[in-house]
């Protein structure tokens, strides 16, 4: 049950995080600003930076958590087959 819940929650939250980070332009279209960052209008450069480095960092996180959840599923499978063997005896 634990690994399953983690897998579903990870997928939902990670998907939303990716969509958010890749669509910062949508946020700025709702909340416009005149601020400047690094010499560029914030509404221009922040979506570009998030669309590159933000997405890059999220892929690192998603890769790590995804691998860990796979291992947990494998462990639950193993413990399940072991308890089946015990029952069989």
């Amino acid at each position, binding site marked *: 049950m634990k690994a399953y819940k983690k897998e579903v929650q*990870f997928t939902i939250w990670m998907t939303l995080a*990716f969509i958010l980070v890749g669509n910062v332009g949508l946020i700025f279209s709702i909340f416009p600003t005149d601020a400047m960052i690094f010499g560029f209008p914030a509404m221009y450069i922040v979506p570009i930076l998030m669309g590159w480095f933000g997405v890059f960092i999220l892929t690192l996180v998603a890769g790590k958590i995804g691998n860990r959840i796979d291992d947990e599923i494998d462990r639950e499978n193993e413990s399940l087959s072991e308890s089946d063997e015990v029952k069989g005896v």
Partner: protein
Amino acid sequence: MEGQSWQLDNPILGLVVIALTFLLFYVVGYISNRKSSSAKDLYVGGANVGAITNGLAMAATYMSLATFLGITALILQLQVPFIMLWIQLILAIPLITIIYGTSLRRMGAFSPTHFIRDRYGVTASIIAALFMILVSIMYALGQMIGIAVTFETLLGIPYVTGLFIFGFIIVGYITIGGMAGATNNAAIQMVIIALMFILPLGAIMKAIGAEGWYFPPLLYADMVPAMLESLPTFFDYQFSPKWYFSIIPALTIGALGLPHLAMRVYTASSLKSARSAMVWFAFILGLVFSATYAMGFVGVFATATQGITISEADADKLTIILNLVYNPEWVTALVIAGAISAGLSTLSGNLLAIGALISQDIIATLKPNISQRVSLRIGFVAIFLGGIASILLAIEPPAFLVVSILWAFGLAGVTNAPLIIVGVWWKEANKFGAIAASVVGGIIYIVVSPFVFPSIVLTGHSVTDGMGLSGAMLAVPISFILLIVVSYITNRIPGLASKLTKQSDIELIERIHGWTDIKSYRYNSTIGAGITVLISAGVAIWALMPWGM
């Protein structure tokens, strides 16, 4: 400079550079593909491709000729809104990987439709495969046109001659190379694309006087004040939040249904390798995308402040024109080779997808007993015929290039993505829901596009309708609603139970998520399905309300 014909003074130089590039691709393709003995080798490179090669190949497959020709033209026309639209395209591979890529890799699928066949049966998979062939041909068509236009305008070779000569060379290379060749070549092509785009851009920026020429993707802030002075509207968002929201169903979800992208995830040697490939993909694609925005910015800057005039018909050639103006000819020749590489890698992805769709998803589905050898041979023939079809369609090219590619994203988002996403995560989804979603959603999307009935459109803003933004915002949620509601109802009609394969569906879903046992609580949430229906209904109603454009 109005009316100037932009062409290399020395076309031989361009041809030699392109010939050498092709020779390299042929050799790599031939060496890589000597081992292609099964359909698995042909389509997913034996499912044994390393993370860096695969990540680079994913990026090259995704970066089409549009990077060199189309995007910068649309930045010239739409300015910042188009950049905002393009940024989220980087989400494609990460989202495919986390939402369904690893599951389908675990299943051993060749293509998304392979999953649809096992999950929803033959009829649904053939409908999906037919839509996917349409999507892949639209996409391949864009590349073919771009390649022929490049040869026509820059080397002086007539359009149709260039189309046939280079079309056949390219199709031959892909047919000979298969996926292993294509993957190794695509990785090389990504390096060529990155170098041939970014280094010449640095030289152009230096010529214009930009201080940050040594890192073009991000260091051009010193040009901003001059840009704001001569073109104060460049950074304006222009459109409402609704326009920016519509990008999500049309392009973010649309990319999830693109067969040639998903196939890249299946080429990974393991699930861990697929996840590492996604990291490499995000890094390299972010780099080249950012350089593309910089090129668009420099293009607008040059036309606004440097007295360069680029006619509307020449807008697609912005990157090449900037190189012709500011760089030596041999640099432009290399840029052209980069553009051709970009078209080639995407085209090979498209054609391999068409090959897999026809041989694996249609013919092998209808005639499951054909031998491995015959299946492989049909695959080669299908790849070749797909290439020929896109060459023939490109003889009379449509007026748009990138627009047709982006419209194809929406079609994939409507007819394929919901079937895969819901099919992987919800056991109740069944073939009746899938067929209803794909057929009705697909028809609605095509009807409200400006290409079939120009008077039936949602916004009247030609680029918004043409790119499928408005159509997908209506049709994608309808597709999700139909899939969930029709499945839910038909699962509760006793007379239909014998036509459904509920038990094998349940076993398939548990297996592709990595489970060895079956538990009724897994992937069975009615609340989750209900929330999806409610959100989808809200989005579809919003799409029907006035867009104010």
